[in-house]
């Protein structure tokens, strides 16, 4: 490919035409304060969008569009760029017609309106990552997609507002035999997952707002389930029903899918927790290096088991590591941001990041992971990613050994 490397800093030959004369935007009025009552990104950022990989699935109603991680920074994922995974398209629900049912092994079987949910005591605000268990699933056999948007873009990190699921279960009164709950969506897939009662009573939320505003339609408007640290498929969107029972339901998404086929032909089920993982988002194939000299490497790290305690970065394919700077909040089961400021002389780099959480779990290499799991798992690929930065700055998804 053609080189992407710029000329680098140098004294200007003459006055910069972007300074002299004064640019037009400093001389004439721009658009007024309310041209967009609901604002949108700059036209110069038009490429920063979710992208679908159309060959991955047979239909867009059961597919995924990926978060452009390479262009994002900080810890919050903007609502408009949170990755989308549907199994029957987006349910468009009039909030006045929304109903939420709790039944099964409870003392009182109940129906709630959205207003009821918003009137429940104990509302909370919490930031959590949501990662699809199939994130990086295309990479089990080897480097395949050139861009962290596609290799790692099934994750977002959002501040949720909602009510602990426990509050509803408490009102309904879980019977002693109630050991699992089934959460069900109101979409055309009527998406269902079985969740152990301990988790349901622990930190799950019945959420109606994200990043300060109502849930987005593609994220379950008006109500979704939040299942901190656990695989995204369980975070039922358009939540319509919670049923309490004494055993799991063995639904399609916990048998045919979201089970992990190992090399010996056997399969792990109920692999709910998302292990510690990280990825360098820049440089990456969609965000090549453009200048020699000072550069900022950045990426994200997260763990479903707790809080990210440390992220190490290697520029030589894992031979030597430097601890990166975690910057901004590091909440349990939330995405953290890390930086490494470095000088680049134009040599080839093999960039990797390695996350550690506060349980002591260290993100494994792909080799370590394959040694235990083989390459047929599809789900839960949290192996260390390598980006090859060429001397012209171009960056490619590779594997090393």
């Amino acid at each position: 490919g053609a080189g992407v490397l710029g000329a680098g800093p140098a004294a200007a030959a003459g006055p910069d035409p972007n300074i002299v004369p004064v640019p037009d935007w400093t001389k004439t009025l721009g658009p007024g304060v309310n041209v967009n009552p609901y604002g949108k990104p700059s036209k110069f950022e038009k490429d920063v969008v979710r992208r679908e990989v159309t060959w991955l699935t047979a239909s867009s109603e059961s597919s995924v569009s990926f978060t452009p991680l390479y262009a994002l920074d900080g810890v919050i994922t903007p609502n408009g760029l949170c990755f989308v995974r549907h199994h029957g398209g987006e349910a468009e629900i009039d909030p006045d017609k929304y109903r939420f049912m709790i039944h099964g092994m409870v003392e009182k079987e109940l129906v709630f309106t959205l207003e009821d949910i918003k009137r429940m005591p104990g509302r909370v605000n919490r930031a959590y990552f949501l990662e699809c268990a199939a994130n990086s699933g295309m990479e089990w056999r080897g480097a395949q997609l050139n861009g962290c948007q596609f290799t790692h873009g099934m994750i977002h990190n959002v501040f949720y507002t909602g009510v602990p699921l426990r509050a509803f279960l408490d009102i309904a009164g879980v019977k002693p035999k109630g050991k699992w709950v089934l959460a069900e969506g109101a979409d055309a897939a009527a998406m269902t997952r079985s969740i152990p009662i301990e988790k349901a009573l622990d930190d799950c939320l019945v959420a109606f707002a994200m990043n300060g505003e109502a849930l987005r339609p593609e994220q379950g408007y008006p109500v979704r389930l939040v299942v901190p640290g656990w695989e995204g498929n369980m975070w039922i969107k358009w939540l319509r029903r919670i049923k309490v029972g004494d055993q799991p339901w063995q639904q399609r998404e916990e048998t045919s899918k979201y089970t992990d086929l190992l090399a010996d032909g056997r399969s792990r089920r109920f692999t709910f927790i998302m292990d510690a993982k990280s990825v360098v988002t820049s440089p990456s194939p969609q965000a090549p290096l453009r200048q020699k000299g000072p550069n900022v490497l950045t990426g994200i790290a997260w763990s479903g088991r707790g809080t990210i305690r440390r992220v190490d970065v290697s520029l030589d394919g894992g031979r030597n590591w430097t601890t990166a700077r975690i910057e901004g909040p590091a909440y349990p089961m939330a995405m953290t941001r890390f930086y490494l400021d470095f000088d680049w002389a134009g040599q080839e780099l093999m960039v990797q990041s390695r996350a550690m959480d506060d349980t002591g779990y260290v993100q494994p290499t792909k080799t370590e992971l394959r040694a235990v799991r083989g390459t047929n798992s599809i789900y839960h690929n949290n192996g260390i990613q390598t980006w090859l930065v060429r001397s012209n700055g171009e960056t490619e998804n590779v594997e090393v050994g």
Partner: protein
Amino acid sequence: APEVKGAPARAGAQEKPEVEKASMEKGKPQQAANVPAGAPPAPAAKAIALGRPALPEEIAAWNIDVRPDGEGLPEGKGSVKEGETLFLHSCAVCHGEFGEGAGRWPVLAGGQGTLKSDRPEKTIGSFWPYASTVFDYVHRAMPFGNSQSLTPDQTYAIVAYLLNLNDLVPEDYVLSKENFPKVALPNQANFYEDDRETTEKAFWKKEPCMTDCSGEVHVTARAQILNVTPEGDAPKGNLE
């Protein structure tokens, strides 16, 4: 005055944690986070007057899940033959006449003996642990675009046909609420609970290597798809 709940006694009185005191020092361009308010207030002693009783008809309308032990199965029955007719009419366009899958639509039959291979084919017969899931899912979500349109009898018939396509029941089989629990799928025994905390214990390392952790490192594989927005005749995806 109105009754007021949920004001934890400790709020306000709470000693400021050390962490934050430090972070509040003047002249530091940093920002500390405080301790969140903690667990939501315990449910009021008095029951919360929200939600109304669910009516039996309402529960019946939404309570569609079916479990391996047969819980949730409706009254009814259907034969492989009836199922074939229904399948050819409503399903085969996507899943193929014999469940072999058209284009990229899911394959539903075959694949036995492939689970250890390089390209496992995971179907009802080769992979799924429980027949109840077929009933539940077909009624819940199929035909794609017309969910929950199949009657119990139709669903029994289609499931019977799918079992037959996977060589699990004979051509003259009639599936019903009564004989459903007898249907066992061959791969059931090969599922086991998440054991990462024991089988992957090696991933918990106190001090990962920082320096000279390996010999020379070489690129062993490169991305197959070079365009960041893949299009055209690409390989069949493995996002399931």
